[in-house]
């Protein structure tokens, strides 16, 4: 068996006195699409943000391709924080796409995509822009390279954000509700880019309310409710014959809307 791309073990996350994630165990298989589904406030976004080290977990461990992310267990079994350079190195294997795109408004699409190459990796400007242009081409936006985010539609902005996350050639891509801020007509173009990425064999973790996408593109579905991971399985097990009563109840609302046709 190959090593999981991301391995989450006994993860706990507390905000003050509120426990938002409780004993999460999850293996993200390499080269597959893992979807996190669940109602609002179930902790799925927090779990994804822990995987990107945007939130620091309170207990437990996360490893990325076998390397500890943020914290490690020392010889006495205590949790210790890793040095910043090491955290950055592990994080560099991960690309993150946000619900709100989070493009930098003062840079063009090309500027956004080439920024990390230029600033972090000191790649010369022309080479960085060539590589950025190749990524923009991949998401079908090479003719929008010199547009500022304010001049792009939501769907185009999210595609630029995906190109930006891809420029550093991450091994894993995390998507935090990538289509939730888009109107329905624009979700398609973003989901298509994600489908292409999945077809190339990218390891992906997707938090989404797009049950149709989860059912057709997802290889592994995890269902969270009230900070607990209730069920992980293949799409057919999750959508066709939901065994867990809470999952069944959650899916009912979607199946009513015709998602059952997809599985």
């Amino acid at each position, binding site marked *: 068996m190959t090593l999981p791309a991301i391995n989450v073990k006994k993860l706990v996350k507390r905000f003050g006195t509120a426990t938002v994630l409780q004993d999460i165990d999850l293996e993200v298989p390499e080269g597959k699409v893992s979807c996190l589904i669940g109602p609002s406030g179930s902790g799925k976004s927090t779990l994804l943000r822990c995987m990107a080290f*945007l939130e620091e977990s309170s207990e437990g461990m996360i490893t990325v391709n076998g390397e500890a992310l943020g914290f490690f267990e020392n010889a006495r079994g205590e949790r210790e924080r890793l040095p910043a350079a090491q955290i*950055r190195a592990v994080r560099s294997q991960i690309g993150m796409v946000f619900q709100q795109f989070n493009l930098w408004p*003062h840079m063009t699409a090309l500027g956004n995509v080439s920024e990390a190459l230029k600033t*972090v990796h000191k790649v010369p400007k022309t080479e960085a822009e060539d590589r950025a242009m190749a990524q923009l081409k991949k998401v079908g936006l090479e003719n929008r390279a010199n547009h500022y985010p304010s001049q792009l539609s939501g769907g185009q902005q999210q595609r630029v954000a995906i190109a930006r996350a891809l420029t550093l050639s991450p091994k894993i891509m995390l998507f935090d509700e990538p289509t939730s801020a888009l109107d329905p007509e624009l979700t398609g173009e973003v989901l298509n880019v994600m489908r292409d990425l999945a077809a190339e064999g990218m390891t992906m973790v997707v938090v989404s309310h797009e049950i149709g996408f989860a059912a057709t593109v997802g290889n592994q579905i995890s269902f969270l409710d009230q900070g607990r991971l209730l069920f992980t399985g293949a799409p057919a097990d999750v959508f066709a014959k939901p065994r867990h009563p809470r999952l069944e109840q959650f899916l009912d609302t979607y199946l009513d809307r015709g998602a059952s046709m997809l599985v």
Partner: protein
Amino acid sequence: MIFDPNVILKHLPEIIQGTGVTLALWIAGMAFGIALGFLVATTRRYGGKATNVVLAIPVEILRGTPFLVQIFLVYYGGPFAGLSLGPIPCGLICLTVYSAAYYSEVFRAGFAAVPHGHVEAAECLGLSRVQIIRRILLPEMALIVLPPSVNLAVILLKESAVLSIITVPELTTTISAIGSQEYAFLEAIFLLAVIYWAIVEASAKLGRIAEARLSTFRFSAP
């Protein structure tokens, strides 16, 4: 009383010199104040909770007391604490520290106005804290902090007139002296108002030009 412009012409060299002192103190005090204020704002943002609370105390005291009182305290009270300063160094230090307190608040608000997600996106791509400040936060907040910064600059110029109290040879001191010397108070005070107002208008104009340049990326058409 008859308005006599000859009084002004006669003393033109002194007036120019006084204007020069005011401009130099104002610009230097503001430049140092912006630098110190930026340092305070970044330290408060990244230095942890305790640092933030400790630094809030001097900022609040400086913003909560009149500039006149601060100058008196440093100029006349300073020697008792072993700090004997001439009028010009004292004036420059007071202007710097006073404006730094206000500028630190302007920058604090500027930092807060940049959506946190923009910083997170940069963190995910491996940008260091300094790179995030330089490449993301500063350019994004420039447009937000510019109008209050220009406003503050104007207020600071007018506050600098208070330095005449401790005999700094700036514009107000110079022109008041001419007024007494020539018994021409109306001419003197009128001229004083005109010069301050001209500098304020010029700096406001510069501010508007800078704002228009910075805002291209927000408003330009596709």
